[in-house]
């Protein structure tokens, strides 16, 4: 539990301080999503669900009107990703990034669908464009984060 809270606090730190300063193509990367996918891929769906829920609630507190939705969607992504891992071999880095990309597309679209449905009716093409850009941004940041985590394990083994 402590790990989840610390991870979620790191996510909050990233979303408040780093993400606004590293926006790409007009979108900000979503560390909560990236780490939820990584947790689910590394430890399974249950870990993914709990991490997604914890991070989602903490991040949701920054946008109180949408409190609950982020946690719900992230835990859903953690659940799907964890189940996917049991059915497919997602060990190589490219497949993990592809999983993250797909998870980002689903998450971003569902997030807009549940919290800003009127945008889908008014301008679906723009919503899809933003969703795609955001997913690509998450994938790029995901590569860096996944590599850092992998090196962390290597360094720990070396020490």
């Amino acid at each position, binding site marked *: 539990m402590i790990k989840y809270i610390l991870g979620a606090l790191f996510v909050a730190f990233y979303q408040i*301080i780093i993400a606004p300063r590293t926006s790409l193509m007009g979108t900000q990367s979503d560390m909560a999503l990236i780490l939820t996918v990584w947790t689910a891929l590394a430890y399974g769906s249950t870990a993914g669900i709990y991490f*997604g*829920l914890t991070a989602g609630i*903490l991040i949701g507190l920054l946008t*109180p*009107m949408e*409190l609950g*939705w982020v946690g719900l969607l992230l*835990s859903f992504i953690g*659940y799907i990703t964890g189940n996917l891992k049991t059915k497919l071999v997602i060990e190589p880095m490219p497949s993990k990034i592809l999983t993250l990309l797909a998870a980002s597309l689903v998450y971003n679209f569902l997030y807009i669908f549940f919290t800003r449905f009127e945008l889908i009716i008014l301008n679906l093409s723009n919503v899809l464009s933003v969703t795609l850009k955001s997913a690509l941004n998450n994938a790029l940041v995901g590569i860096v984060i996944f590599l850092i985590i992998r090196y962390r394990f290597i360094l720990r083994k070396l020490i």
Partner: protein
Amino acid sequence: MPILVAFFISVILIVLPASFKIAISRVFINTVYYPFTQIDIFLTDVAHAKKNNIRMNQRLIQVSMQAAQFTEDHYENVRLRRMLNFDLQIPYRLVPAEVIGLKPGLMAKSIVINAGIDKGVNVNMPVVTADGIIGKTIAVTNNAAIVQLLIDHNCKVSVIDQNSRAMGIIRWQGGKFLKVGDVPIESQAAIGDTIISSGLGGIFPPGLIVGTIVFSENIEGTMFKDVDVKPSVDFGSLEEVFVVIYDEQ
């Protein structure tokens, strides 16, 4: 099972009243997220300060360049003022006078002004208005002088075309305009050129405006041009004039 737990917790949070959500959010932002928001504010301030610093440096350079330019302009201004004062002080001195008398006739060929020996006026001194030369003094008393106008056929002025630099002697020979004699046929004196005094006659200093060329054609069988000049001065409405005391005299 865990997904159901997550679902129920999330749904509970979603259906909470908005005021309650905002209250919880406020508590978290003021406690848990407080260090993060302070770091965010600090970094934002630093970024703004950096941008402002760059902008202020650019502005400083612009202002420095402007200041340097102003200094240059100031020194140029001082130099020009010195040159102007030098020109005014050394070759010329203007003595103001009023026209107090006209020679009777359809068009006065000479006028009387109220400046004489008492003001330093002497014979053969140029008389001008702001528009240009009007003539020269031909007789002087203690407090008055007679001015022979350019439209007197005895008044001659050595002139030069400001554009073509063609030189000649201007005088009135009857008609509406002054005539410039001895202008070589090769000269480029053209209609519209300004005629000024050349300073060669010894009476009129160089550079005083006489008039504008209104006619310029070669005289057949000669080596000279026929050049007519419209005087720049309206001789019919002379009231205030200046006697030029030209120190070279």
